[in-house]
Each structure stands twice: as structure tokens, then as C-alpha cells.
């Protein structure tokens, strides 16, 4: 595919906040988790990192945040090197890891205040209060974390990550195991944060959300960044559409006169599906409809469907 690597190898964007250059990682066991990665994250964007389990998403995030030592290559955050100048980079970053790891016996208020201090900031109760209110945790502020539900614990971890007012927020699978209502709240929060100028990098398995939320999408597979693209452009470029015709009378087979078209007949013969490329010069719909009419095929209903990012993603990963 020609579009692969177009963005990844493109010149650095006007105002990147994170620049990853040639970063790889091989663990002590000899497992190469990341092949050399080049990536720049734009200031103020929502960037979604997609990939199957074990693709290297968490390793990449962990290296940027300082939890895993980098192999070769360099990473800068706001122009500061993450190794040499780790105080400057880490104080700008908030991290919400995938696992729900909390200090069970601490209260919500104390754990958020602890995080703020740990990141080198003087106490500011008004900010902690605002964060807890935004996350609907204010009523639970004096509760011990172990008394909270899983969804609340997830929000506590977000509160901890926001306690030091970071410019960059990493959300590693923020909606894993979170119910629909809470997920919607969480995405609203992410949008509000982005509106306030925070750059957000997230990984998710809910691909439709990346499609909804993210400005750009990166696909990582087996430690390799195989694609970085504007979400809309990606949908546009790779987006195939399906036209489904519900037939008035079932067909036993596709008539020979229609064999020129990319048609598929459902098992019971009641539906014809036509797949076409939205980017093509001619979609072929007019010709198809003409040929259908000539063949005397009548239909009850017509519907079209756009390929989802998930399908694009599965295609990409398979083609490797």
C-alpha cells in the first residue's frame, strides 16, 4: 500500500509537542517490543494509538513517560530530552496506565494530593477539588479507594494524572471495562481537556471511538508503526462503501449480464451487495442500476454502509 509511512516519514510538523526519533526497545529476555519508531505528536491534538495486544503500544508510552528505559533513539517533550532532562518532561506529562493500580487504603482526596506533590507542585486544594468534581468523584473524596467501584477507581487514576496540571495526558486503554454511560462521560472529559489545550495520546480497543474522537490515528503492529494518518483522511482513503439491495424476488444466482459488477449474493438470494471505492473516478452505481433494470431485477430497499476504522485496521494488520 502506497500510503503507508507517508505521514510517519513526513517532515516534523509545525509545532510538535512530542518527537520520537528512531526509538526501539528490546527487553532483557531478548524480545524486541519496538522496532525503530519515528513519530511526532502535534500540540493540542488527540492522537489514538491502535494495535492488537502485545503490539508495543504500552511499551512506547512507558518509554516516553520514563517507566521503561529506552533502547536506541531519542524522545523530546516540549523540546526537552526525556532522559537527560527528565524533570522537565515528566512534570509536563500525566499518565493513566492500563491496570487499575491504586493505594487501596488511601482516600481519594489524599491520593490525588499525593500525586500533585510527587510531581513537584505546592498544594492547591482548589485544583484538586475541580478535578474531583469534573470526574464526579467529589462526593467520594473521603472514601478509601478500596470501597470504590472499578469505574470510580479508573476515574481516581485519571484524577491523579491531572492533579499536577499536565500539558500532555496519556490514557492507556481508558475505557477498558467501563460501562457505556461512564465511557461517554470520559470522552466528554477528554474533549474538554483538549479544548483547554491538553494534548492527549490514547490507546483503545474501541476503534469506533478512535474514529469519533481522534484527530489522528497511528497503527502499531508487532512493534512497528505501520501507519500514521489524519483520521478523516484515513477513512477517506481506505474507506470502501457497500451498497446493499434488498431484492423483491430472491435470485438463485447472479445473472451473467451483471457479472461485470463486483456483486455478492446473500445465501438466501434475497440481498445483493455491491462494494465500491468512494475515491474512484466512477463508482459504477449508475451502470449497475441500469443493468439491474435491464435484467428485470426489482428491489424493495437500498442501503449503503461506510467501512469502519476497525475493518480498515484488521485489513492493515492482516496485510503485513
Amino acid at each position, binding site marked *: 500500500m502506497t500510503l503507508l509511512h507517508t505521514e510517519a516519514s513526513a517532515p516534523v510538523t509545525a509545532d510538535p509537542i512530542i518527537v520520537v526519533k528512531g526509538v526501539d526497545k528490546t527487553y532483557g529476555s531478548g524480545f524486541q517490543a519496538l522496532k525503530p519508531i519515528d513519530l511526532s505528536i502535534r500540540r493540542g491534538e488527540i492522537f489514538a494509538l491502535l494495535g492488537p495486544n502485545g503490539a508495543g503500544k504500552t511499551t512506547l508510552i512507558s518509554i516516553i513517560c520514563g517507566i521503561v*528505559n529506552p533502547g536506541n533513539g531519542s524522545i523530546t517533550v516540549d523540546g526537552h530530552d526525556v532522559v537527560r532532562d527528565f524533570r522537565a518532561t515528566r512534570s509536563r506529562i500525566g499518565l493513566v496506565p492500563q491496570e487499575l493500580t491504586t*493505594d487501596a487504603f488511601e482516600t481519594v482526596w489524599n491520593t490525588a494530593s499525593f*500525586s500533585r506533590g510527587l510531581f*513537584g507542585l505546592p498544594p492547591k486544594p482548589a485544583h484538586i477539588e475541580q478535578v474531583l468534581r469534573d470526574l464526579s468523584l467529589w462526593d467520594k473524596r473521603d472514601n478509601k479507594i478500596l470501597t470504590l467501584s472499578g469505574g470510580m477507581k479508573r476515574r481516581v487514576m485519571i484524577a491523579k494524572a491531572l492533579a499536577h496540571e499536565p500539558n500532555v495526558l496519556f490514557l492507556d486503554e481508558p475505557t477498558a471495562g467501563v460501562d457505556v454511560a461512564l465511557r461517554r462521560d470520559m470522552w466528554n472529559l477528554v474533549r474538554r481537556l483538549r479544548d483547554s489545550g491538553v494534548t492527549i495520546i490514547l490507546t483503545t480497543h474501541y476503534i469506533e471511538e478512535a474514529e469519533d474522537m481522534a484527530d489522528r490515528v497511528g497503527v502499531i503492529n508487532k512493534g512497528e508503526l505501520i501507519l500514521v494518518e489524519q483520521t478523516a483522511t484515513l477513512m477517506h482513503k481506505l474507506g470502501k462503501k457497500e451498497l446493499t439491495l434488498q431484492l423483491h424476488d430472491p435470485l438463485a444466482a447472479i445473472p451473467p449480464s451483471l457479472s461485470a459488477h463486483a456483486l455478492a449474493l446473500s445465501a438466501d438470494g434475497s440481498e445483493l451487495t455491491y462494494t465500491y471505492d468512494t475515491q474512484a473516478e466512477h463508482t459504477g452505481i449508475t451502470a449497475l442500476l441500469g443493468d439491474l433494470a435491464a435484467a428485470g431485477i426489482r428491489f424493495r430497499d437500498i442501503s449503503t454502509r461506510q467501512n469502519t476504522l476497525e475493518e480498515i485496521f484488521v485489513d492493515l494488520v492482516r496485510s503485513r
Partner: protein
Amino acid sequence: MNWYAIRAIYNFEMARTRRTLMQSIASPVLSTSLYFVVFGSAIGSRITSVEGVSYGAFIIPGLIMLSLLMQSVSNASFGIYFPKFTGTIYEIHSAPVSFVEIIAGYVGAAATKSVIVGVIILATARLFVDYHIAHPLLMAAFLLLTAITFSLFGFIIGIWADNFEKLQVIPMLVITPLTFLGVSFYSIHMLPPLWQKITLLNPVVYLVSGFRWSFYDLADVGVGASLAAITGFLVACLVTIGWIFRTGYKLKS
């Protein structure tokens, strides 16, 4: 230097101590009282005095040292092991702190707690026997230095341990025997000549001897040797911790 981070870690650890007050404070006081009843009263009544000091008073420095070593090692090792175990250590790694702040917070809190326990035992001992302290400042210095050094040692154990058994094995199998055989309850002069020499290989002897000297001017080895021993161990622990953080040993992959 990230002072707010040191304060955050220190306060977090001290809050943990307050949550487990019975275990942290009451249990060492109870066990020390038992030692006084058994060794001080029951056995001590037959020994009467060691080099001019009543047996009950003689064992006070050793008893405090025993608790100080055990408490320092277990506080500090548990303090750093637990976040590793639960996974909350991710936050420490992702924070703008160097190992200096991490050590100052965790080891500072562990040492504080052991010093508190030491002082409480000293006060409890007053209920059983009369004693005096010949060199109060040096006594305090020994107390502090030992608490810090063994908290550092405990911190290393906490990083090295990857299960709860390993966390217990050094305190149980190394620290306890060394302390009991480390002249806590007797003078080295009470031993046969060969055992006197062997005992001198036990580092705890130097700690207890120096600490007892600060009470009664009574030492099994020179005070200089005691200070040198504790300082040497302190430096060894610091070097090991420096290496741990440089290489990420058992902390970062």
C-alpha cells in the same frame, strides 16, 4: 531537588504507619516488655551485674538495637516492596524525581518510625529498671545513624525481593540471629576466647557495643571501631542503591 515530592512520599509513608499503629508501635513495646520480664527479672536476678552495671540496665541498649534493626529493615523493605507488588510504583517512575528524592522519602519515613520505636522502648525500660545515659548526644547519633543505615539496607531488600517470602527471609534468618549473637544480652568477655574472636566477625557487635558505650562507658570494642563499622555499612548501602537506580535493577526493564 523536588522537595514537594520528598514530603509527599514521607507523609504517605507516615500515614501508613498511623493506619497500622498497633502493629507499628504497640507490638515492639510489648515484645520489649516481655524481654525485660524474662531476661531482666527472671534471669537477671541471678546474674545481678555485668561489669558494674545491673543486668536489667545492661541489656537496654541491646534491646533497643534489636528493635531498631528489625523495625528499620521491615519498615523500609515493606515501604518500597508494596508499591512494586501492587503496581502503584508506576507513578514514582513517571514522576519528576531522582533516586535521591525517592530514598529521602521512603528511608526518611522508615528511619523516623524506628527512632520513634527506639525512644518508646527507652521510655518503657524506665518502668522496669533505672539507667543513666553517659553520652546523650552520641547516643542519639548512634540511634539515628543505625536507623538510617538499616532503613537503607531494608530498602535494598525491598527492591531485591520479588515475593513476600524473600521480604521476610533476611530479617528472620540474618538480622535476628546476628542480633541475638551480637552481645545484646551479654558481654563479649563472658565468652570463651575462641568465641570472642568469632563474635568479632559479627557486625552487629560493633553497633551494640558502641550504643552501650554511649549509655555506660562500657564497650566490647573501641567506639572508633563501632563508628567506622556503621559508617562503612552506610556507605556500602548507598553505593548499592546508587547502582540499583543507575541500572534499573529489578525496578525498570
